[in-house]
Each structure stands twice: as C-alpha cells, then as structure tokens.
C-alpha cells in the first residue's frame, strides 16, 4: 500500500506521544546538564561543560558504571545459562507442556515489590527458609546475612533478579528453538549423532540469532533495573550495589543535585544508545548474512 499521508496519520499519535513524553524530557535533560540547577523548576545559569567535567573527573560515576557492567554481565550469564536449560526442557513433548510454558512466567508477572518481599522474607535470619535449608544440606553451618557483605549483596541481587527474568528469557529462547526444523534432528539421529553433537552442531548455531537479540534486549532491560536494587539494598552496603540508575536517583532525589543527575543521565543514555546502535547494526548485518 503506498499512501504516505495515510501512513503518517496512523503513526502520528504514537510518535507524537513518544516525542512529548520521552523526546522532549530527554532534550530537557540535556539542557539541564549544561546548567546549574538545584531545585526543579528554578531557572539555571549556563555553565558549559562544567557538570560533565565534574562527573567524569570524579570517581562516583565510574564506580557506578563499573558496577553496572558487573550487574549486566552477571545477570546475562546466569539468566542465559538457566534459561537455556529450561528452554531445552520445555521444547520437549510431554503432558502438561503448555501449562508449564504458561506458568513459569509467574515470577515475571508479579509486581517487583512482591518479589522483594518474597526474598527478603525467605533470606531473613528469623523465619526465612533459605538459611535452614542450606544448613540442612550442609552447605553452610550457621545462618548468613545475604545482604551483609559487598560481594554477598551483589550476588544475592543478581540471583533474585535472574529468578525474576529467566522465565522470560527462556520463552524467548523457546521461540528460537521451535523454529529449528525437526527433520534436521531426525537426519542427525539417523547419521548416529549423539545428543551432545546434535546440541553443538544444530541447536547452538541455529539459536545464535535469538541469542543475539536476547543479548541486546536483555542488556538494556537489566541495565535499567532499579526497583529490585533500590528496595532490597538501596545501593548498599557501602555503595556496593549502586548501579548507574541508582546513582542517578540518589543524586537527584536524595542529594537534590539535579544538574549533576541530569549529566549522569545524559552520559548513561549516550552509552546505552551507542551500545544499542552497534548491536542493532550487528544484528541486521548477521541477518543479511544468513
């Protein structure tokens, strides 16, 4: 159908909405980052790149950036590994497979605050289930505070966030798996290929496009996670879990340094958009190569 005017008419509402609610504020954030503003709504003075120099010259931004990278990579590794296993299982035929596929996503559909309460309680040292269970299995010999140490807090958060997201990732992988033609496996079986061979020679390579898409989407989603971290550790202990979104929130709404927060926001956006652009380029390139 070729009717550009009509097409624009169809797109305009969504586009205008996005421009007004996301585009314009983004422009405002950029303006704010070149000003010196403390209170929302107050007029600022133009300070050039002072904010950028301050943020990039300080250690807070870079530390939070490092934590964000650790956060994203750890989540990607844990979620991909677990989700792949789950997807391979759910790709089998067995009674109740549909119910299983539908209900694994339960962890993703409940509000984060529920996830937070579930895990705070299960991990708590009074009444929690996890400590007694670990003791019973002889993994630890006395209750541990999961959020007490720096490494412990980060690890625990990654586990909880992964618990929340792996079903979603698993379903996306399942989508990739179901598109692999079954006769490929039949042929391989007739040729006497072992299960492991079939996985490494057929499943893994043909799953690559799906994994790449998931890698991009998953990275952006994990990066943006705020509420799980904020509600469980508020960035602590001693800033060990303060990723970039947490740093932005704290700078703006605890420290009331709006310009600085806007500057970190703009830098963060540039990082993510750069990543997204490179990744989508790579994606379309690999699609064309196929």
């Amino acid at each position, binding site marked *: 159908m070729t009717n550009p005017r009509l097409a624009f008419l169809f797109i305009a509402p969504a586009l205008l909405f996005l421009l007004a609610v996301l585009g314009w504020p983004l422009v405002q954030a950029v303006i704010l980052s070149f000003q010196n503003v403390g209170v929302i709504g107050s007029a600022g003075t133009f300070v050039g790149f002072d904010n950028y120099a301050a943020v990039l010259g300080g250690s807070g931004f870079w530390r939070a950036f490092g934590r964000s990278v650790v956060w994203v990579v750890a989540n990607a590794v844990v979620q991909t590994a677990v989700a792949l296993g789950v997807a391979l299982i759910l790709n089998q*035929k067995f009674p109740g497979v549909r119910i299983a596929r*539908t209900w694994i996503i339960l962890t993703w559909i409940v509000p984060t605050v529920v996830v*937070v309460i579930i895990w705070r309680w299960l991990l708590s040292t009074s009444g929690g289930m996890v400590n007694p269970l670990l003791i019973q299995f002889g993994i630890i010999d006395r209750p541990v505070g999961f959020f007490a140490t720096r490494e412990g807090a980060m690890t625990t958060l990654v586990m909880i966030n992964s618990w929340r997201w792996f079903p979603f990732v698993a379903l996306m992988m399942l989508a990739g798996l179901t598109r692999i033609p079954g006769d490929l496996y039949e042929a391989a079986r007739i040729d006497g290929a072992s299960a492991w061979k079939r996985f490494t020679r057929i499943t893994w390579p043909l799953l690559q496009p799906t994994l790449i*898409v998931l890698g991009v989407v998953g990275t952006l989603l994990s990066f943006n996670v705020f509420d799980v971290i904020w509600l469980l550790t508020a960035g602590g202990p001693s800033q060990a879990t303060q990723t970039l979104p947490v740093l932005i929130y704290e700078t703006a*709404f605890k420290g009331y340094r709006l310009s600085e927060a806007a500057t970190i926001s703009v830098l963060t956006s540039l990082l993510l958009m750069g990543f997204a652009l490179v990744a989508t380029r790579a994606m379309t390139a690999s699609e064309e190569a196929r």
Partner: protein
Amino acid sequence: MKRTLPQSLALFSGLGLIVLLIGLPFWWVMTGSIKLPKEIISRDPTMFPRSFTLQHFDKLFQSTDFPAYLLNSLGVALFSTAFTVALALPAAYAFFRMEFPGRAALYRLILLTYAFPTVVVLIPIYGLFAKFGLIDTRTSLVIVNIAFALPFSIWMMRSFLASVPREIEEAAIVDGAPARVILLRIMAPLIAPGIASVAIFTFIASWTEYLFASVLIVSDARRTIPVGFAGIIGQYQIDWGLLLAGATIATIPVVILFAFVGRWFVAGLTEGAVK
C-alpha cells in the same frame, strides 16, 4: 520420537526442579500469610502451615490503605493498556504494511527509545508534569506507562501483522475498503492474540511500575500497589504476616488475568517477538 528411560528421568527431574524453583517461594509466601505470627518467625520453618489465621488479611484491609492501592493499580493499568493498544495498532500497521519515506529511520528511532534508562527522563518529566498540574494524579502514571510500553508493543505487534497473508488484505483493497476499515474489521480480529499479548505486556508493566509512581504520586490515597506496599514495609516494623498477606493479594489479580489470557501471551512471545 521415543525417549529412553534415563532421558525421561532427566527430563522430569529437570521439570521438577523448575517447578520447585518457581513454585516454592510462592508456596511459602501464600502459606505464610495464613500462619500465626509465632509460626512465621519460628526457627524451624514449616513447609505446611500448622496454624491458621486470617488476622493478617484483616489488618491489611482494616488498618492500611491497601484496598485503595489495589484500585489505583487496577485503574492505572487498565487505562494504560487501553490507550497503548489504541496507539500501537495503527502505528504497527503503518510500519509493517505501508510504504512511506523515512520508515526505517522512524522505526529505528522508536526502538531506540527502548534503549535509554527510564530514570533519565524522571527529572524532566517531573518538571513537565508540574507545569501542567499533573503531579499527584493517576493520569500522570497512565501517561508514562503508555510511553514506556509503546515501543515494545509496536515491535511485538509487528510479527503478528506479518503473519497475516497479504492476499486477505489485497482482496479488501480491491473491494475498495478504506485502510481504517481494513485495520479494524479485518486485521484486528485476525491478530487478536497479538493484541492480547500487547495488552498483557502493558498491563503487567503498568501494574509493576515503581520508580515513576514513587516520585509522581504524593498523597497516600493515590498510590499504586508497588509504592504503597513499599511504604508499608517501612511503616510497620517488619510485620511479616501483614507483608505476606499483601504479597498474596497483589499476586492474585495478575494470576487470574494470566489464567484467562496467559496462553495467548506466551504464544505471542514465543511465536512473535524474536522473528
């Protein structure tokens, strides 16, 4: 394909592990919400409740604003969902079935909005909404929820539209049907599962949104579940019974919704989203 016994064993133990991994935490929370406080914090946690009480639910509904949070969340999520679908459907149709200059660039732009951290626009949006008197209104939450859900919704609807054979549309075009009619009368019913998927996605995203709801809403009575609930956590010195009851109640609406339309949603994710 026949499975050997070890293969079956591996499959079903794996499956059991998944069920436990997801089900056990929920089981503990739901059963915990009906235990007496003494049993909840007992040193030897019980798998099956030995006591029974509804006092936590009673307290939740009598002495907190929880019922109001529940209604606010429902209202915000329903409105966000309706508007998102209404905006995403024509946009997705235009992007994937119509030709116009700048199509690829515009589409990439929309996908890019998915990339930046939402916290980035928090401060400017606060300023913008303050100007229009939208602070402390549920409308403000509906507006941001739509904006956050739109890019993914358009993307998700794409594959469903693509799955409709072109001949069906072409027949309608030959008959002289205007695009609006083709979209609403022919395409919409055909991609009903896709619309349902987008609706569920938006509903859940709105139902769980915390960051903007915590900043844009000031008065207690207008809070949504995520924020109101987070407030209860601090307000009452860790009354686990109360929190577990709240978690149970907050879970139930999504579970009911999912029981009805979950299969469509999962089909939408698995058949559509990665294409």
